[in-house]
């Protein structure tokens, strides 16, 4: 018997592809913000998982603990993530690129550790979970209603038995398409041209009367806002909000998507994310004689290797434009 037998049946299973699709869509969103930061503004934001955490936790805590309406909590969570982005950016964006990278990474860790420590608000390392049975309020109650609505609509169209994650898949990819178009359009405006000018030559931008700090802060705040949206979908997908979902490595999952897709190429992100998540989810179906820790290690190793190899041999990614790429001096 082969120890490496692959269950090919998994790849014909609709559930597998729906699962891949939801994760892939969520990570396109996370990488969209990075594209704006790294690809168009030239700032290396290493804290995207932290902004995602701020978004998800604000949404979760406001609905569960403070009794806010779901529809009010969503925009508030975006605002919270943007404010946090500005707070982190103000001291660090004035400085060289590497200081900013270290600071954002540290800020994301502070969010995660605070979420773990503030047990009264966030329920500590267990987090806010919706998997318990019984009658209690959870952050995804309203989302479930929306999801059921979409499901019955699909059934009324003649789709007899859609997978339970299909509504989430549709909504996530709806956001992906709309936000990609919006970002593409705003980077083609005069504002977007200033961002590129800041990326290419800060002093030149300053000489033309544009304050680079203001533009970098705006770029960072927008990335944080999109990360907050990705945070909701991650929370709906796994029905929980816990510190381990926002480890720094998830920022670099998004970086792997970003450079697979290519710098300064918005549509490339979709291909990049689809490839990465097919690869990552497929590891679940390779029958290796390994335990759960080793399986997690294998997934992280894949992401690490993808990043190293791409940076070494094709830093602009699959669809990136070399002329749009500024990778340091």
């Amino acid at each position, binding site marked *: 018997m082969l120890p490496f037998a692959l269950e090919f049946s998994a790849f014909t299973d609709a559930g597998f592809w729906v699962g891949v699709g939801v994760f892939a869509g969520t990570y396109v969103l996370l990488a969209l913000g990075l594209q704006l930061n790294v690809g168009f503004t030239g700032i*290396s934001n290493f804290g995207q998982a932290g902004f995602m955490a701020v978004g998800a936790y604000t949404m979760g805590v406001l609905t569960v603990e403070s009794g806010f309406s779901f529809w009010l909590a969503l925009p508030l969570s975006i605002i919270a993530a943007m404010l946090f982005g500005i707070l982190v950016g103000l001291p660090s964006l004035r400085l060289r690129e590497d200081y900013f*990278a270290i600071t954002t990474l540290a800020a994301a860790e502070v969010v995660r550790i605070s979420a773990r420590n503030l047990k009264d608000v966030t329920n500590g390392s267990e987090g806010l979970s919706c998997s318990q049975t019984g009658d209690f309020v959870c952050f995804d109650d309203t989302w479930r209603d929306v999801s059921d609505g979409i499901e019955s609509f699909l059934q009324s169209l003649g789709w007899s038995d859609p997978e339970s994650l299909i509504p989430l898949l549709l909504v996530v990819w709806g956001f992906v398409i709309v936000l990609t178009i919006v970002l593409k359009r705003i980077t083609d405006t005069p504002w977007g041209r200033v961002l590129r000018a800041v990326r290419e030559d800060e002093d030149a931008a300053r000489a033309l009367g544009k304050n680079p700090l203001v533009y970098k802060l705006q770029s960072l705040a927008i990335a944080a806002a999109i990360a907050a949206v990705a945070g909701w979908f991650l929370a709906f997908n796994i029905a929980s909000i816990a510190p381990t979902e926002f480890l720094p490595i998830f920022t670099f999952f998004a970086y792997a998507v970003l450079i697979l897709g290519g710098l300064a190429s918005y549509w490339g992100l979709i291909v990049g994310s689809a490839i990465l998540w097919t690869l990552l989810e497929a590891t679940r179906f390779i029958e290796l004689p*390994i335990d759960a820790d080793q399986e997690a*290690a294998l997934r992280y190793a894949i992401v690490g290797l993808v990043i190293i190899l791409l940076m070494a041999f094709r830093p602009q990614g699959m669809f990136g434009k070399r002329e749009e790429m500024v990778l340091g001096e």
Partner: protein
Amino acid sequence: MAARPEYSPRERLLGWSRDRPALAAGAVLALGVLALVAAKGVHDVAQTALYGLSLGSIYALGAVGLTLVYGILKLVNFAHGDLLTFGAYMAYLANISIGLPVAVALLCALIATAALAVLFELTMWRPMRGKGAGLFQLMLMSIGLAFLIRSVVQFIWGGQVKELDVDTTSTVQFLGLRIGETELVVIIIGFVVLSAIGLMLRLSTLGKQMRAVSDDLDLAETAGIDTRRVIILTWVFAGALAGLAGVLAGATQTVEPNLGFELLLAIFAAVILGGIGDAFGALAAGIVLGLVIELSTLVFDAQWKLVVGFVVLILALIIRPQGIFGKAKAI
């Protein structure tokens, strides 16, 4: 004769502290310690400070190697923390799996980690420099490497917490203070090694060459320094110190795949606080940071340690991004 400009006392104080940042930082620190002594008593503060020295030695050992690589190669090595992890696991392998005494295991870990650091220089960093890779490319690559090292460690040894064969219960008492034997050994090793490093950098030819290359690589090369050799030796040095820091961290706490990464941000804070590329600065800032973080547990719960380190980093970035020992320059 031109009239001398009038300065208010506030401006004079600000000007004074700008010219002597290390003294000013020391004064702020001393005031903080005095306030703590007033609030908690001498005994508690001294007791906590002892553990701060142990933590500070680990930060300083990690930071010296990181700052040299940062300064010489312009490489922000996010994989440095995972070199610490690797060192700790090498000591575990030699100490527990093979059964060698801890001191021998420590030596094995130093050699293995230095060899790993040189291996990465030869297979990754040197070819990438040859290609003229930029800052972002190298940063991201080092992060990929960090995850790769950690995954391999987790794949082989699993995610569970391991312990080295050290005495974690005996304590030593003096002057009414009590400290764990392991922590005391860590402090002694830390201070001996750090003093040796300081002397080596200040007095030996290699140390001078390292600092020259860190200042300006091209100029050093023109001056006849074999920069390739200096770079390899810098990696040996950084790797061995990282391995040592990893083993000391593993001995005082536990050995786990996240050991190095959890220390990395504080080590970066020490590097920035000391001024990037400045080995003496990193050394002093590491010790100070260890003290500050450990003393903060008298005020805040210990689970907020990492957050305290981050706040120090942010304050440093706002007030003096070139480091408390760095020369005034725009960054």
